[in-house]
């Protein structure tokens, strides 16, 4: 077990940062906000943490806290600027934000290290702390998927007009999406630089958007569990595919394309649908639908093919 851990430490670290990066894109998508600003926040968080550690010699947790706070505030400001945009227009605006961050890091002079980036980001940040932060983030995101908040997030995404009628402020939820996305992106970037001790312009940019989006499209975009599945697959798959040499990228691309075509709700979506189907079968075996029960009792005469029509007789209501 320890041998596996030691020999795959980098991949385990990359899984944690990749997962939080994926969540920084998934959380706004769950609220119907097509924002990829999490990738830009990843860059800001990484560089800010690196600068604070190198220049100010702050501890890992101060660097992470500062990175998350800064990226959350930037997320809020960005949200105030563009939250009224929708769909592709919003996506393009956030991609532009990510690209601007990339340009700033290259042209930031000594502060950002230019095209070579920043090195020697050495702190006392441990793998245990990284796990703990990842678990805390997962718990908070999981909490937002259930109960009242989960229902409201579903409403904001699936039917904004209905959400308004239910007293839900779209503005508040959309701005929250930008803030949370920023904070998560900043956390992922800061953690990454603290375990790798270096950051450069090539580590941020458009590739991060593709990586995060691929993780949640294949894993599943409606739940943190999908992000976990996607993060594990797309962190470990390239390593496994090194065995096939130059065909690696082709096979990787085919897997992504097949998943996008045949699993539109991702792997987790398939599991959810399967679970629903099994529960429905169990329920129908145990308790026939109310209308069927009424029909068997001779109370109503449902329309053909409409076996779940409403039961008219009060006696059929459990």
């Amino acid at each position, binding site marked *: 077990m320890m041998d596996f851990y030691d020999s795959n430490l980098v991949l385990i670290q990359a899984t944690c940062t990749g997962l939080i990066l994926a969540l920084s894109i998934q959380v706004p998508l769950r609220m119907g906000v097509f924002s990829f600003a999490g990738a830009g926040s990843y860059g800001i968080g990484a560089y800010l943490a690196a600068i604070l550690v190198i220049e100010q010699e702050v501890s890992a947790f101060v660097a992470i806290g500062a990175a998350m706070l800064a990226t959350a505030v930037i997320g809020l400001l960005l949200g105030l600027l563009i939250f009224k945009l929708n769909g592709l227009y919003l996506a393009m605006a956030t991609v532009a934000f990510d690209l601007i961050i990339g340009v700033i890091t290259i042209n930031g002079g000594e502060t950002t290290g230019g095209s070579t980036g920043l090195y020697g980001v050495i702190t006392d940040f441990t793998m245990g702390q990284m796990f703990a932060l990842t678990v805390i983030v997962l718990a908070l995101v999981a909490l937002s998927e259930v109960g*009242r908040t989960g229902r409201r997030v579903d409403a904001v995404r699936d039917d904004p*007009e*209905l959400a308004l009628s*239910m007293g*839900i402020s779209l503005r508040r939820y959309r701005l929250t999406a930008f803030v949370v996305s920023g904070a998560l992106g900043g956390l992922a970037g800061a953690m990454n630089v603290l375990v790798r001790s270096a950051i450069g312009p090539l580590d941020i940019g458009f590739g991060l958007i593709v990586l995060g989006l691929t993780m949640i499209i294949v894993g599943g975009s409606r739940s943190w569990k999908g992000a976990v599945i996607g993060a594990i697959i797309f962190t470990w798959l390239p390593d496994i595919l090194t065995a096939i040499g130059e065909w690696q990228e082709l096979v990787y691309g085919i897997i992504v394309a097949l998943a996008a075509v045949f699993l539109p709700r991702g792997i987790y979506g398939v599991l959810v649908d399967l679970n629903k189907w099994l529960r429905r079968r169990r329920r129908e075996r145990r308790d026939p*639908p109310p209308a069927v029960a009424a029909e068997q009792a001779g109370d109503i005469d449902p329309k053909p093919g409409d076996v779940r029509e409403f039961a008219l007789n009060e006696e059929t209501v459990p």
Partner: protein
Amino acid sequence: MSAQPVERTSTPVLELRDLAVHFGGVRAVDGVSMKLMPGLIYGIIGPNGSGKSTLLGAITRLTRMTRGELLFDGASYAHVPPSRLARLRVARTFQMVRLLPDLNVRANIQIGADSRTTSDDRTGSRPSWFERLRGPAVSPAVVDAIRRTRLGGFESYYPSELSYGTQRRVEVARALAMDPRLLLLDEPTAGMNQSERAEISGLLRDLRDEGLTQLLVEHDVQMMMDTCDYVFAMNSGQLIAEGEPGEVVRNPAVQEAYLGRKWGRDA
């Protein structure tokens, strides 16, 4: 036009003054005024495209109005954001069924009750942030709404597993779970069979007897005759008649709007 059944000195629950909604050159609603007194069922009838649903959209602030005034309990709410209407306890259903596909029946109804936990101070104590985040699994209001709309047994079903008529019931239950003071129903019985319509009509009359004011948009004239206390007829965005249901249905202008000039005259 006859006077409303109960001319009261009390303040109308809802009052529209010269309400207009124009989309470019199209006058979807054009100068509509009406008063809805407490504890009555009002209906709006009219042919397709007469502006009924647009009027409901304007009343719920989902559709931007061009001019006019909206008053709830005598106070203007013309500039209140639509998400704040739940605080006034205004609930509505939509012309097309709008249920959240990933939530089961219970959760779809619970989302209506959720609006009460933040927007309603009648509960006395303010819930903690965790309670607000988590919310109750099932509110008593949801249990009551399920019982009233006779959805018992369907709680764990998803919308895609329900017939259209049952989906409509879930919408009505969701609106009831908001504990409304004003209930706006846009074709609530569309897709239902005759018995179900009669049952919904009975439910609405029961709610009326409990003091709930309702505004009903419906094509089914018989349903309106059986259910409503007072009916408004619309055509081309304007009110063309109002009064007791039977009187409005017999109105030549209403018959002409529904049946055309020749058939309306002969009817």
